[in-house]
């Protein structure tokens, strides 16, 4: 393969590099906007941003196909966006409007989208892992060659569900790609204060799952690692496990005074901002001009600005509909099919 060295020394294909840069920029700008909208009280509840960790979702999701499934956590705006849920549907969800991807019932922590096989948005730490195992079990039993990518933080590693899920996936050789987003903290608890063995890939290896660590700030390394793992999973190699070493630049949530880590630690990690790393690599390889960089930023900005307009124009769901979707709406015999609960609202309304 021709190309120039990426941030981690890997080769960069110019078009692919610019594509990944744009993906990370889209997530960054969406979330910078979320923070702003939270401060303006447009968004409420808990808000957990992914700023600093974008390379992980960008690299892994670039390695999946449309039939694959994705399971994520409450820090999932970026995963949803890069999976193909529109920024408008995501923001409208956070505004609590019916145009949101979950009609405003889920909010920031519970983004779901059937059309893109995006299975949430789970606010119970480690709650998504067994679900991913089940999705993969269904694929395997039905003879489909899909992969289920499951994202979770390193905090989840301490939960029983993590261990039960890894064992099941390995025992039954299920097509799951476990993606551990190791940002070194679970709220205020540093990895070394919560795990006797801090080498997370070793834990997966104990379940006979091929596992390795990847520089989660280097999107090209993430993409390369994910592609290798996805190929192996898809071709019947059983579950694989990536430990993606990353860092969150912001507080855990909007309520976190960050008493547990030093400012200079954050500053040191910010020197490895995944967007800057890739941008610099592309620039020094002569693959990104100043004008192209401006254009990428402008494209992302325009998308997010349109999404804000879409969300601002949203409407609250009528209160009379409060108790809908507790049970499935049955076919009334008029040929209308199952209830709208399985249809992605955002798609139908043409959200930007």
């Amino acid at each position: 393969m021709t190309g120039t060295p990426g941030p981690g020394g890997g080769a960069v294909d110019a078009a692919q590099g610019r594509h990944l840069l744009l993906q990370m920029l889209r997530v960054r700008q969406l979330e910078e906007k979320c923070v702003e909208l939270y401060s303006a009280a447009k968004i409420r509840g808990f808000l957990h941003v992914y700023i600093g960790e974008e390379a992980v979702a960008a690299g892994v999701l670039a390695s999946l196909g449309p039939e694959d499934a994705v399971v994520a956590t409450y820090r999932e705006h970026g995963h949803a966006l890069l999976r193909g849920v529109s920024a408008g549907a995501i923001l409208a969800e956070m505004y609590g409007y019916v145009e949101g991807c979950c009609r405003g019932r889920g909010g920031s922590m519970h983004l779901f989208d059937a059309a893109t096989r995006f299975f949430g948005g789970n606010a119970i730490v480690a709650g998504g892992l067994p679900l991913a195992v089940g999705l993969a079990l269904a694929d395997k039993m039905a003879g489909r060659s899909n992969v289920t990518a499951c994202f979770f933080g390193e905090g989840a590693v301490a939960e029983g569900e993590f261990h039960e899920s890894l064992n099941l996936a390995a025992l039954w050789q299920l097509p799951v790609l476990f993606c551990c987003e190791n940002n070194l903290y679970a709220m205020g608890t540093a990895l070394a204060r919560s795990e006797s063995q801090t080498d997370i890939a070793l834990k997966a290896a104990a379940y006979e799952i091929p596992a390795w660590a990847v520089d989660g700030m280097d999107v090209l390394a993430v993409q390369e690692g994910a592609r290798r793992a996805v190929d192996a999973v898809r071709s019947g190699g059983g579950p694989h496990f990536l430990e993606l070493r990353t860092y969150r630049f912001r507080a855990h949530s909007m309520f976190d005074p960050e008493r547990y880590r030093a400012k200079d630690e954050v500053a040191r990690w910010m020197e490895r901002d995944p967007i800057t790393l890739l941008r610099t690599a592309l620039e020094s390889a002569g693959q990104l001009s100043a004008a192209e960089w401006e254009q990428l930023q402008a494209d992302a900005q325009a998308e997010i600005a349109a999404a804000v307009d879409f969300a601002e124009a949203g409407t609250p769901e009528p209160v009379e509909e409060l108790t809908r979707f507790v049970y499935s709406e049955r076919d009334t015999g008029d040929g209308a099919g199952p209830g709208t609960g399985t249809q992605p609202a955002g798609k139908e309304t043409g959200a930007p």
Partner: protein
Amino acid sequence: MKSSYREALRAGIRDAMIRDERVFLMGEDVGAYGGSFAVSLGLLEEFGPDRIRDTPLSESGFVGAGIGAALGGMRPIVEIMTVNFSLLALDQIVNNAATLLHMSGGQFHVPLVIRMTTGAGRQLGAQHSHSLEGWYAHIPGLRILAPATLEDARGMLWTALQDPDPVLIFEHGSLYNVPGELADDAGPVDIDTAAIRRPGNDISLITYGGTLPAVLDAAEQLAADGIDAEVLDLRTLRPLDDAAIMASVTRTHRAVVVDEGWRSGSLSAEVSARITEQVFFDLDAPVGRVCSAEVPIPYAKHLELAALPSAARVVAAAKETVDAGG
């Protein structure tokens, strides 16, 4: 002394830590983070990491360890961030903490206190907003407390720690910031009885925990309309203070139970059933109930508000009950 519900809880924990060396606090982010709801803020500095013990994300593990430590002679206070996450520890709470005394023929006591946040109202969505204390009140072997006032937030913990059996304390998330006065000598309170928070003669409004403020508000609105409501705070959800409930209802002849839990199979159902079992012939009207709509709590503010008990809904239910009585 000016205080708040959160500070009152903290004062209760401090007091217990000072009084009894066997007491320690354990849970996720109780130490370095300062407590997920800042209840334990500053305690790590005062008591050190052995007694203000941060745990990994392992609810089943550290609740079970709390049970074991209690068996081993300690007096643990285990904090679970919210009742929603306590479901990961349900096995330990229901199959171990609640049963060991009985299964061992009275040999092994579990003097454990588990504190957790409960309730909705902050747009946190379904997985962070549920009120499941009524479920726990179903379990023999557990004592269930729901402090609604600063005095109870301050004083229930010490009494709970004296209990030889497991006690669960539910702190409604909307109460933490409630300000108030707390007597300098505020200390332990009983954990057996319900309390009349507002005396009245026309109807008994029976509630607990996070809905107490809305019910007191409703009582004031009813007073303006000439209905003199009594507000009874259950305080302890298991065992229920039947005597206090029946004394109030036999006086007012009407009752509305207000519970943020869902109606079906709920604590409000239990209270209502006991009233009809014990003082049916004193009633002038069927027992009313105001509960949460039977839906996982939605994120959108207007839907969440519509799902929850409110002063307006309590007023309406109370008027209906009074009118039904003729």
